[in-house]
């Protein structure tokens, strides 16, 4: 069913019904989506815990302790101030980065605050246990998703822009920026920006994130030395891992915002039960491919 869709060049003008139930997300996609959501959240928070053990980033093979790309620290003041240095620029970040309240409420020297880390206390070994377990869960879950997506054709339908979408790329961007969400049959498929975003997240950001994580392992570097070549050294891999994590956070923020804006309950029902309601267009749109007035 999800593969049947009409193209923009043939807009559906016949108004048969105003609301139509469509089955949007097969069970495998729904389950892997939610497992993935949990994995990413745990990986992010336990990753920040691990980062806090040495809250500084470098480029290259080794740590150039005097010239980090980014570092968080606290000052000698009483109470201490939190300070972050990025590419030589220093910002005061008390309460957020460098110094924030610990479990006892007293200011503690820590990179990210306790409410963002897992476990919440400074606990590197705990963070590592969470991180590795959920990294395995993430990879296995992702493999199931990709395998299913490839075999069922879902992946292609979902993330590869169709020819008409590529042709109307400009219009699509305009619609997206003005938060005009597609209706009718057009709502059955992802628009070109959604597709390209998912494409980049699935096939660029997430694989790079896994590879950068592996490149930090001394044993994996022995087994696959190309990992170090790929990232220009272990410390750069650590920096890439951090930056890609930040990009994934950005993706999730936009993703959740759009879920909220484009019909929260409908979207949630879609991703929980699979069923999604498509609102029929009341008036057919005459001009296609041009920004609407």
């Amino acid at each position, binding site marked *: 069913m999800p593969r049947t869709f009409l193209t923009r060049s043939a807009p559906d003008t016949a108004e048969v019904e105003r609301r139509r139930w469509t089955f949007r997300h097969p069970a495998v996609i729904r389950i892997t989506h939610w497992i993935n959501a949990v994995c990413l959240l*745990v990986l992010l*928070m336990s990753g920040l815990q*691990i*980062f*806090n*053990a*040495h*809250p*500084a980033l*470098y480029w290259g*093979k*080794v*740590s150039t*302790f005097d010239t*980090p790309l980014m*570092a*968080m*620290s*606290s000052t000698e003041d009483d109470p201490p101030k939190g300070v972050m240095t990025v590419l030589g620029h220093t910002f005061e970040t008390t309460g957020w980065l*460098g110094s924030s309240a610990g479990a006892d409420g007293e200011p503690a*020297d*820590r*990179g990210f605050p306790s*409410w963002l880390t*897992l*476990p*919440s*206390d*400074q*606990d*590197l*070994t*705990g963070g*590592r*246990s*969470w*991180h*590795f*377990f*959920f*990294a*395995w869960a993430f990879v296995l879950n992702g493999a199931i998703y990709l395998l299913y997506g490839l075999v069922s054709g879902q992946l292609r339908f979902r993330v590869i822009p169709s020819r008409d979408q590529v042709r109307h790329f400009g219009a699509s961007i305009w619609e997206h920026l003005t938060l005009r969400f597609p209706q009718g049959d057009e709502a059955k498929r992802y628009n070109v920006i959604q597709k390209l975003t998912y494409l980049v997240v699935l096939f660029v950001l997430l694989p790079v994130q896994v590879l950068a994580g592996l490149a*930090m*392992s*001394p*044993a*994996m*570097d*022995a*087994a*696959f*030395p190309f990992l*170090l070549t790929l990232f220009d050294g*272990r*410390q750069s891999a*650590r920096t890439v891992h951090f930056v890609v994590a930040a990009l994934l956070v950005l993706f999730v923020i936009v993703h959740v915002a759009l879920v909220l804006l484009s019909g929260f309950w409908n979207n949630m029902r879609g991703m929980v039960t699979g069923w999604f309601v498509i609102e029929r267009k009341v008036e057919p749109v005459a001009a296609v491919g041009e920004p609407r007035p």
Partner: protein
Amino acid sequence: MAAAAMLGGCDRLGNAEWFQRTLKTGEDANLFVQRLVLTDRTLAPEYAEADISPWFKPNGTEDPPDRSYKALAKRKFVNYRLEVGGLVEAPFKLSLAELRKLPARTQITRHDCVEGWSAIGKWTGVPLADLLSRAKLKPEARYVVFHCADTMDQGEDDGGADTAQDDGPDEAVPAGNANPAMTKQSGGGESRKSSGGQQASEDTAVGGGSPVRYYESIDLVDAFHPQTILAYDMNGKALPVSNGAPLRLRVERNLGYKQAKYVMRIEVVESFAGIGEGKGGYWEDQGYAWYAGI
């Protein structure tokens, strides 16, 4: 707030014994898969002279407080004897001069601390495989344990453990100071949960009454790896005390906490369950994974 409640829930979950064991399966999987992709002779990357870090960050113990160690160091370790024993046919002792006369290996490798930083150093030392072959392992031998000179926990009252742990170079590296326990031997930061950690040192005080010294263990795969050496030189000079003089283990393909400094005695065992708290190393006893390939 929901998020705070959730985080509290995760913390409680993370403290539950069954859940910790579940999480640890991730680390078991790391060992399993990494041993699949590595052969016994796959080498860790080696680097060029130009890559050597100008400063090889010492971590953890930088100057063992132990009197016996200080006496050895004062006389430039002329009285030092490395003991090799345990499950071997021919235990022996070697002085530093004798070790230096044995065939040596030099390697420029990267040291990765569990905290996240890296440094590159040049190491010269005796391949562990040569020493173990000389000692002739008994058939039941499975692990090699390294007993070190430096006391980690005095086993006094509850302040003792922290005193021993917190003597790291907080001021030396601005980036590191959010992790005040720049602890012993490249081990991780403030890993011990405040109660658990204190508990451990009290147990030691009550149970053994003797101070807890650093120790580490590796299996025979790592022990016979060509890059596993007992290094006496760093960057072409005698190993400084801060980096583990007179002898430190280099077991490349592993994180820093495996690279035991101040090695005094090598013990071949069938199981490390009876040593320390039974987890195979000082940091392992604090919860770190025994396998440190990632």
